[in-house]
């Protein structure tokens, strides 16, 4: 069936069936082109679309997102409905500014977390869900333009997405002009204000807040920045409703205010089947590792939440629920949905020193405590890992952890501090062993944790 035919047919068809259970976001098989996408999910349920055939349509998408308990999937986990409501209100209040009416929607798919692959997978396998989400969010917050950020070096993907946007324009499935933007690869470049800074013609570096993007962002307009996965969920909530969304989650139909729904988690490290998995939030860590085929060699620990997350010893971690609340309660985090299994054959202190060095090098160079504090911290951890840890070095490291936290324009210093602090807790036995016998042989193996562009020579 042609795309035009599919849209016509879907307009008179009965209700499209919501995905039963999982997966919700990434259908099996090849990515759907626009006609197939509309046949499968129904047309984009814009407010002004004729509500024929009893098809569910969220008359107020913002209220539905609030009721659904959808939270951001980019790492910060901020309630999406609330963010949308704030941007919409600011947009109504602000009127036109410098001839620019309306607000702006930015779909953030730049994914600078090295161990995360979910956003590029989503953009490759289910791009129309993301684009639906941009269009629906734009309508809900009164946006007059949209942007979709992708990580640099994905020219083919950027071209495909641009072509899809063009096709959707022909069938009025976008409602606003949407431009694809490539974001450079630095760790902090995909932070919300860094993306906006780049859109405004500046460097891709985090900006000081206030003002926050919802007050003044792209082109001075109130701007809604959402991770691409969050927008894909929104596109399904708009069609199938908040109750459907909340049927999966930490408990079925969790209480109001509790996070809910499904999430994409990238599992890597010493597992048999590394990859991106969609889970119901609240699933225990052990169950996900089992779905990924279990450990590929004797496991030692897991890193939950990426490089702003935390280390957990392996066996106690298995029962921890995969949710932000569950992981924060044990000193880790969900972050952008990243889980890495560390094998026994690696040294947790060396891996931490390696990544602390990488993160120090990723500083945007704007804030003294970060520019000075992170290299000093990385140096201390390197001493603990590769030298003979003594009390003084350990104490200096602890002092630095307190000194750098929450003193920058972005969370690079706090996130690094939290990650390093968790390593001193989880690898305390290693630290003791290193201080009596010196560094273990495992410090010399190739690192498990990815750090693009970073080299060992910088460290030792």
């Amino acid at each position, binding site marked *: 069936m042609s795309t035009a035919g599919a849209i016509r047919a879907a307009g008179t068809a009965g209700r499209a069936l919501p995905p039963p259970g999982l997966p919700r976001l990434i259908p099996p098989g090849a990515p759907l082109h626009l006609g197939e996408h509309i046949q499968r999910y129904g047309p984009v349920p814009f407010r002004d679309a004729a509500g024929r055939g009893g098809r569910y349509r969220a008359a107020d998408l913002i209220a539905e997102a609030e009721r659904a308990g959808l939270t951001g999937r980019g790492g910060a986990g901020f309630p999406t409905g609330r963010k949308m409501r704030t941007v919409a209100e600011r947009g109504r209040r602000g009127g036109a500014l410098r001839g620019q009416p309306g607000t702006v929607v930015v779909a953030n798919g730049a994914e600078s977390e090295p161990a995360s692959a979910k956003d590029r997978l989503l953009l490759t396998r289910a791009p129309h869900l993301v684009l639906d989400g941009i269009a629906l969010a734009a309508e809900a917050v009164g946006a007059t333009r949209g942007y979709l950020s992708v990580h640099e070096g994905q020219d083919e993907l950027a071209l495909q997405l641009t072509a899809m946007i063009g096709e959707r324009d022909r069938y009025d499935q976008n409602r606003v002009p949407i431009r694809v933007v490539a974001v450079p690869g630095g760790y902090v470049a995909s932070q919300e204000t860094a993306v906006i800074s780049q859109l405004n013609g500046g460097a891709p570096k985090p900006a000081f807040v206030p003002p926050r993007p919802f007050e003044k962002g792209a082109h001075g307009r109130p701007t809604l920045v959402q991770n691409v996965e969050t927008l894909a969920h929104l596109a399904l909530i708009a069609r199938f409703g908040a109750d459907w969304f909340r049927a999966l989650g930490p408990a079925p139909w969790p209480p109001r205010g509790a996070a809910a729904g499904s999430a994409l988690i990238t599992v890597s490290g010493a597992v048999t089947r590394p990859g991106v998995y969609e889970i119901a939030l609240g699933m225990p860590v052990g169950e996900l590792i089992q779905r990924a085929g279990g450990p590929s060699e004797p496991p030692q620990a897991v890193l939950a939440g990426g490089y702003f997350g935390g280390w957990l010893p392996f066996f106690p971690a298995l029962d921890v629920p995969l949710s932000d609340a569950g992981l924060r309660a044990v000193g880790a985090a969900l972050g952008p949905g990243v889980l890495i299994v560390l094998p026994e054959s690696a040294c947790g202190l060396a891996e931490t020193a390696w990544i602390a060095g990488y993160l120090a090098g990723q500083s945007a160079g704007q804030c*003294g405590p970060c520019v*000075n*504090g992170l290299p000093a911290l990385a140096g201390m951890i390197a001493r603990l890992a590769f030298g003979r840890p003594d009390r003084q070095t350990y104490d200096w490291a602890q002092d630095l952890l307190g*000194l750098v936290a929450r*003193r920058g324009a972005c969370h690079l210093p706090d996130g690094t501090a939290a990650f390093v602090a968790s390593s001193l807790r989880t690898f305390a036995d290693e630290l003791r062993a290193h201080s009596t016998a010196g560094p273990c042989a495992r410090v010399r193996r190739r690192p498990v944790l990815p750090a693009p562009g970073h080299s060992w020579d910088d460290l030792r």
Partner: protein
Amino acid sequence: MCAELLPELIAEDPWGYPIVAAAPVPDELVPLARRAVAACPTLALLLADAD
């Protein structure tokens, strides 16, 4: 420099950057706080409304 202007609320880290007390600025210290913010050569300080 700022730590000298407002020692009640600002200490200095090993690299000379301000460490700011978490509590809101008492009313009587607001004028001094404004001077400290204006005097900072690296724009490391910001006076914000506690709302």
